[in-house]
């Protein structure tokens, strides 16, 4: 626990592109007020080491840019107060992703997985502009509310040992996103797109790698509960495969 004016040590993992190994650098700074880990990194960059590289944007837990490992846990650094973590504070890049430089990681694989689940609607019966919007009751909206809160911070991918060991696994955020669109009432249950989405989710690059560890839901800063979404998708996936088998049996593809 830090008090105002107290010296704080930050042990930051650095990486220079082209080098084989990461290295660690320790910085000392004075703790003040409600200093967050992101504030500390900004202070280091401004006053001690301008080469320190990391991502951030909104500084208020909504953009998802500042995700990093702090003392071994994936967190949003703008939401992690220095006085709430043990010292010295270890800051590392997000786990399970290639490191580009210092604390900046390549999230391309995770975003590719999110694109693969077709995160958009294709209503069977399109409405013209003149016909107005696609109506939805509050109860229908509530079904997708929780999973629509995802800010794509990728802390869940960092927390998931399955994704760490098997890059074929679609991952928690992509699973939650797929569930959000699957339960959207504005998309028909029998649409070709929804069937295609279920085909992707049921494939070897789909959801079946999940063994319900649950750590993704624990670290999620927006309480999306991707673990719950993935279990529900498994039920949907099993029903989808059963339906496909039955259709094949009766000769109707």
């Amino acid at each position, binding site marked *: 626990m830090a008090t105002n004016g107290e010296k704080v040590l930050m042990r930051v993992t650095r990486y220079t*592109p082209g080098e084989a*190994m990461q290295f660690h650098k320790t910085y000392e700074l004075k703790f003040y007020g409600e200093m967050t880990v992101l504030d500390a990194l900004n202070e280091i960059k401004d006053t001690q080491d301008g080469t320190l590289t990391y991502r951030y944007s909104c500084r208020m837990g909504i953009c998802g840019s500042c995700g990093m490992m702090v003392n*071994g846990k994936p967190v949003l650094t703008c939401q992690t107060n220095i006085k709430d973590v043990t010292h010295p504070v270890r800051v590392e890049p997000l786990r399970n*992703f*290639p490191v580009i430089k210092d604390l900046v990681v390549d999230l391309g694989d995770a975003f590719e997985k999110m694109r693969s689940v077709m995160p958009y609607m294709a209503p069977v019966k399109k409405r013209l502009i003149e016909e107005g919007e696609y109506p939805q009751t509050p109860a229908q909206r509530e079904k997708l509310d929780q999973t629509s809160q995802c800010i794509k911070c990728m802390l869940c991918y960092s927390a998931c*040992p399955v994704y760490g060991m098997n890059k074929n696994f679609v991952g928690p955020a992509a699973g939650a996103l797929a569930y959000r669109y699957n339960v959207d009432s504005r998309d028909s249950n029998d649409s070709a797109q929804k069937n295609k989405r279920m085909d992707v989710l049921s494939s070897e690059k789909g959801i079946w790698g999940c*063994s319900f560890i649950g*750590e993704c839901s624990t670290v999620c800063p927006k309480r999306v509960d991707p673990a719950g979404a993935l279990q*529900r998708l*498994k039920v949907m996936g099993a029903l989808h495969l059963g339906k496909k088998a039955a259709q094949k049996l009766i000769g109707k593809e």
Partner: protein
Amino acid sequence: MSLSTFPPFWWTKNIRYALYLIRELTGPLIVGYFIIFLILMTGESLSIWDSEIGEAVAPFLFCTLYGFTIVGFFASLIHSVTWFWATTKASPIPLSKPFQFFLFFSSIFAWIIFSLFVIRALHLYIPLASH
């Protein structure tokens, strides 16, 4: 690019990872119990344990079975309880937290009642109210 990966013995870094691994290990422990049980029952039906080698091996196998019975019993308890909790999360109909708890405890209760019925039906002695 350097890859930031999971450390060796990753499951020791976090209590929830450790609990997950314990949960997963309950499966092989239950299977181990059944394998030892089947070996012993098969040996008994074929009178293998009456032979000289059988007499030497049987006590070791029976001790292993007793050990696995105790470990397997607790493993099946953990396995079942965690499975019942997981099923409340997998419902395609969104369930409120209170209802998830209700479903979980109802499943445990129904499981206990059914287990007692099975044990009674197998004519094993358990202290029940006299009839």
